[in-house]
């Protein structure tokens, strides 16, 4: 029943789109006043999609296996929390969520931009409606979440156990808010371009949307990374997996866009950058959806391998790309040459440098992700691009990037000099000294690591100083940059100081190393609702005599029948202790992997700090405006 209602409200939702387009086009031509009917219809469409989404949730909660999506992805013994999160843990449901966020954002956009130009608002709505219609048709035609199966199966097939995780339950909605938020930026940038509406006022108005999607995208990536850290059991937090990359690419474009908007807010420059980055952010999000969902890439996110779906998104994606190219080429007016020239030492220049760095990182990630596909098509040779590629190309460039990030914000708008900036050199020397002291006694490459740590420390100290000297001025930027320095520092220290051992142990055996002793005491069996757990008890003693018990787990899920390995992680401020165990086939040995990962929690905290910086900027805007 709920499925039926859900299905029909989807169909009605699609019909509403045509009403909206009809009234919008009429209103665009005829009158001067914005027709409120359009807002009402948009609201109605949003409600219909909500009803549809609730219909799917209810089907999941009631374990209504006559619904194909529920049958494929749920099971009656699953805890209620995962029944609900299972709604968007699959291809069909997650697309419905996309659609929900799309309609929500355009509604909010209409409500929030009352004082904007009528024609601009309508054109934005129209472009957004093209995207919405595309998704409606995609959903109804190729991935209907409400397919009926008869006869009704007794039991569902269950949700992939590695997706049964709280971080992952909220990861998709948060990430989607970021992705889809960028659709608003896309539509409004295109609308503004075609009406020649791009101005400093427009930048102020669109900035909040950029900030919102940027914050959600950052948090979404963070959640995915946290999940990978403790669920996939490799002890890392970023694997340069194609799926992670496709979320990183829009983030890089969006970050560059955010900085451009900050310039455009003050002065009518960098408009081409803004338009291109707005287009790029959304098309990269869509491209990510295509790469992930079509099965062209191999990953945990590949829900479906139906080529029909891949083809649909591909065509849709390229229609949008060509539409935006068309608008950009024919309508975009380049600003006058005279104001385009920046003084070499100014904030504008440094933001431009930041852009080029972002573009470089973006290109590296893009090539690493897409190149294997190209190669396979052209020469049918299979390669996989791994972390060494990214590390070699990105890490060295981080050094100048960090320096630019330290010095850039110190410069003034328009024109600047280096008077009263002696402290910059002082801090640089301190950073280098400190870095040398840290790296000196370690058995790693001295030069590159020293410079890397020094440049990160430099940014760290300078931003830290600003908290005291400047106080609340530029607080958001300072917090975000401070967070970034902290992030780089924690990643570096995490890499440099990590230790790892992999060994096979029997129950009762002990492993001794220089710094710690691992004692495998016993295993226990436990029956949970949807899995059987084998828990190991490990006693780990440090040289300092600190005793800790860790309990990694093997879970044997019943629906579907899959074994997963749950790491046990003891976190404290300075380091994480991370242990996983795995069965060795046909033996009574267990494979044990034990890692000490310093500053792990600081990686998460610093990303939180970065997005907190964005949040402050968003609210600052509110009470100033």
């Amino acid at each position, binding site marked *: 029943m709920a499925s039926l209602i859900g299905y029909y409200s989807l169909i009605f939702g699609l019909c509403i789109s045509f009403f909206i387009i009809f009234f919008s086009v009429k209103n665009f031509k005829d009158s001067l006043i914005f027709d409120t009917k359009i807002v009402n219809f948009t609201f109605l469409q949003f409600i219909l999609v909500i009803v549809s989404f609730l219909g799917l949730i209810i089907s999941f909660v009631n374990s209504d296996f006559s619904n194909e999506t529920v049958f494929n992805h749920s099971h009656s013994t699953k805890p209620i929390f995962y029944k609900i999160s299972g709604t968007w843990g699959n291809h069909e449901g997650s697309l419905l969520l996309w659609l929900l966020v799309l309609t929500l954002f355009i509604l909010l956009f209409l409500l929030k931009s009352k004082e904007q130009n009528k024609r601009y608002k309508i054109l934005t709505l129209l472009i957004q409606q093209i995207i919405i219609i595309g998704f409606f048709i995609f959903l109804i035609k190729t991935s209907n979440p409400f397919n009926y199966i008869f*006869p009704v199966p007794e039991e569902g097939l269950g949700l992939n156990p590695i997706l049964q995780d709280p971080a992952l339950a909220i990861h998709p909605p948060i990430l989607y808010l970021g992705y889809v938020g960028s659709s608003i930026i896309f539509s409004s940038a295109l609308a503004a371009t075609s009406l020649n509406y791009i101005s400093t006022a427009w930048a102020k108005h669109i900035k909040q949307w950029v900030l919102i999607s940027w914050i959600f995208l950052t948090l979404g990536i963070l959640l995915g990374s946290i999940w990978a850290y403790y669920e996939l059991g490799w002890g890392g937090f970023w694997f340069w997996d194609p799926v992670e990359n496709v979320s990183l690419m829009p983030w890089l474009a969006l970050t560059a866009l955010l900085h451009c908007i900050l310039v455009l807010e003050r002065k009518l420059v960098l408009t081409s950058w803004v338009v291109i980055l707005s287009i790029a952010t959304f098309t990269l999000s869509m491209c990510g959806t295509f790469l992930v969902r079509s099965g062209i890439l191999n990953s945990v996110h590949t829900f479906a*391998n139906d080529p029909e779906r891949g083809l649909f998104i591909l065509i849709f994606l390229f229609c949008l790309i060509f539409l935006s*190219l068309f608008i950009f080429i024919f309508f975009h007016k380049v600003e006058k040459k005279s104001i385009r020239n920046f003084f070499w030492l100014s904030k504008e220049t440094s933001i431009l440098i930041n852009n080029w760095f972002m573009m470089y990182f973006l290109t590296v990630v893009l090539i690493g992700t897409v190149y294997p596909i190209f190669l396979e*098509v052209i020469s049918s040779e299979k390669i996989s691009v791994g972390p060494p590629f990214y590390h070699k190309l990105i890490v060295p460039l981080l050094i100048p990037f960090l320096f630019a990030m330290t010095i850039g914000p110190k410069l003034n708008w328009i024109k600047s000099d280096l008077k009263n900036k002696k402290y910059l050199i002082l801090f640089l020397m301190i950073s280098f000294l400190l870095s040398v002291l840290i790296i000196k006694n370690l058995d790693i490459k001295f030069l590159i690591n020293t410079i890397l740590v020094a440049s990160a420390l430099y940014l760290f100290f300078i931003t830290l100083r600003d908290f005291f000297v400047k106080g609340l001025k530029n607080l958001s930027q300072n917090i975000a940059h401070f967070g970034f320095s902290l992030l780089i520092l924690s990643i570096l220290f995490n890499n440099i100081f990590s230790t790892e051992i992999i060994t096979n142990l029997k129950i009762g055996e002990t492993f001794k190393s220089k710094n710690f002793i691992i004692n495998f005491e016993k295993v226990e069996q436990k029956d949970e609702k949807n899995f059987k757990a084998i828990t190991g008890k490990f006693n780990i003693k440090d040289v300092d005599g600190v005793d800790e018990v860790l309990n990694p787990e093997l879970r044997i899920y019943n629906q579907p*029948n899959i074994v997963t390995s749950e790491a046990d992680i003891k976190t404290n401020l300075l380091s994480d202790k991370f242990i996983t165990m795995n069965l060795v086939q046909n033996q009574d040995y267990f494979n044990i992997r034990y890692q000490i990962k310093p500053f792990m929690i600081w990686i998460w905290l610093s990303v939180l700090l970065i997005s907190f910086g964005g949040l402050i900027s968003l609210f600052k805007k509110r009470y100033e405006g």
Partner: protein
Amino acid sequence: MKVKFFPIFLIIIFVIVFLIFYKGLQNSNIYTPNTLIKKNIPSFEAKTLRTNKKIDSKNLFKENEFYLINIWASWCIPCRDEHDFLIKLSNQKNVKIIGINYKDKNENAKNFLKELKSPYEVVLVDKDGTIAIEWGAYGVPESFLLYNKKIIKKIIGPLNKKSLFEIEKLIK
């Protein structure tokens, strides 16, 4: 001229990207998050449905060939749904479909095949359901794709367009 050249260049680039992605879709990868994969197949003995001859599984499967083990029963309604897909698959030369008739009456099973045509190379009888347990099946219908005497894919529940497509890819 320079102004006109750039858009054309851009469009050509994007068209090429489109074509490559389009081609890439055709040989898409298949991800199977299953622990069963690459496991050796269990050995068993069973009688055939038609001739009532005893067959040892060791002699049944040859190296370098694809087999689809399909566990079915005449009383199982979803089995009727997947039957069309099995027939479609049986027209492919490079895969042999072997049926395991699960907890069924011989009479009913034969009627089922008479009525709907048989896609199977051979049907083995699993009266008490022990063979299905050996295979680690959860219920009927269920299918296993074998290659070199190893399970390379397991399909729980009835075959559908999607799983048929995946199988066709794998046996290509």
